[in-house]
């Protein structure tokens, strides 16, 4: 791969993570257990979609084929997406949605913190903007995970089940490949594996406070961030997200 192709892969990974998670979270709009949570989820989704516009906007520029962020979001098929599997799994109950949010926010905040020092000014600028929003996301998802984990017998049970279900999807966020190696060598982005220690201590601290137990396995489902094998859920998600462009190709607002 050329340098631009590698950079494009990195940008798609960032933008597809926020796009797919933003879409998943927006599925709660009008369905959350209480109004405040509904608003909070909608606002979180909105931030993530906004960040997507920046990442995929830059991806389109780097690609140099005249594609906009919208083109990349709506006109690609499942195998072209580069998001981690964690963000595409279905929401499950409210507890699982918030657990996934916490596991992602923790990674996201650490990643963006490192990207502030990217050798690429455009990446650093997006990270600067996004990290302020993600600090709020993490504060809220941590609080909620603690509240529900250390809550009633039922909420505790559901949060532990959510953690057990989602934990095997955590490892992929730290699995490095040749794209990461090249980005790290160029000073554009950190090697994801180098974020793991900070992540583990953050997650351990919050989950301990939430009286939850991290599963004792490092097994990781992979295949999202390199596009080799997404779960069946991504295709279903895209039929919703891309419905308009598939039914009316080229339709504009």
């Amino acid at each position, binding site marked *: 791969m050329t340098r631009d192709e590698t950079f494009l892969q990195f940008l798609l990974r960032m933008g597809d993570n926020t796009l797919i998670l933003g879409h998943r979270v927006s599925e709660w709009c009008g369905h959350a257990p209480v109004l*405040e*949570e509904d*608003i*909070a989820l909608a*606002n*979180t*989704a*909105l*931030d*993530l*979609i*906004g*960040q997507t*516009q*920046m990442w995929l906007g830059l991806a389109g520029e780097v690609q140099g084929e005249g594609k906009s962020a919208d083109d990349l979001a709506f006109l690609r098929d499942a195998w072209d997406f580069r998001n981690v599997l964690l963000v595409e799994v279905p929401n499950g109950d409210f507890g699982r949605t918030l657990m996934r949010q916490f596991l992602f926010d923790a990674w996201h905040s650490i990643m963006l913190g490192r990207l502030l020092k990217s050798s690429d*000014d455009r990446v*650093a*600028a*997006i990270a*600067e*903007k*996004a990290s*302020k*929003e993600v600090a*709020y996301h993490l*504060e*809220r998802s941590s*609080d909620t995970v603690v509240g529900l984990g250390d809550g009633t017998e039922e909420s505790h049970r559901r949060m532990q089940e959510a953690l057990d279900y989602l934990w095997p999807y955590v490892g992929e966020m730290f699995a490095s490949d040749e794209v990461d190696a090249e980005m790290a060598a160029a000073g554009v982005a950190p090697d994801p594996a180098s974020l793991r220690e900070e992540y583990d201590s953050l997650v351990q601290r919050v989950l301990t406070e939430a009286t939850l137990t991290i599963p004792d396995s490092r097994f990781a489902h992979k295949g999202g961030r390199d596009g080799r094998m997404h779960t069946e859920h991504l295709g279903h998600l895209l039929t919703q997200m891309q419905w308009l462009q598939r039914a009316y190709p080229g339709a504009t607002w």
Partner: protein
Amino acid sequence: MDRATVEQVWEWLDAVPDPEIPVISVVDLGIVRDVTWEGDTLKVAVTPTYSGCPATSVIAMDIETALRDHGIDKIKLETRISPAWTTDWLSDKGRAKLKDYGIAPPQPAGGPDRCPHCGSTAVEKVSQFGSTPCKAHWRCTDCREPFDYFKCI
């Protein structure tokens, strides 16, 4: 016609209300970052508050409409994301207007210092997020009124 001075343009922009919190202007909000003439084209740099804020495109349209109404027809709007918007850029005039409107202005401590309705310091957070991306939802335990708090970022 002579082209308007940059000062005059800032004054015009200070009359463009924020679409979601119309008591303050887009200048009060600190999102207009730069106004310059480039030949006969007026360049205005605008920064978004939150990256996904749906008001951003409405604001751009409102700015353009206002400037056209003042006779400027060559306008170039630039979205500038760095340096990232901070609530430090809210004007003092804007902060006072927010408070009068019932929205607690941002505080470095991370929460409102007092209830914008009765002035009590007995306030508590209801939710990290409020009616728009830039606000959180709080309530006063003295006068029992809920209120929006403009988050500090």
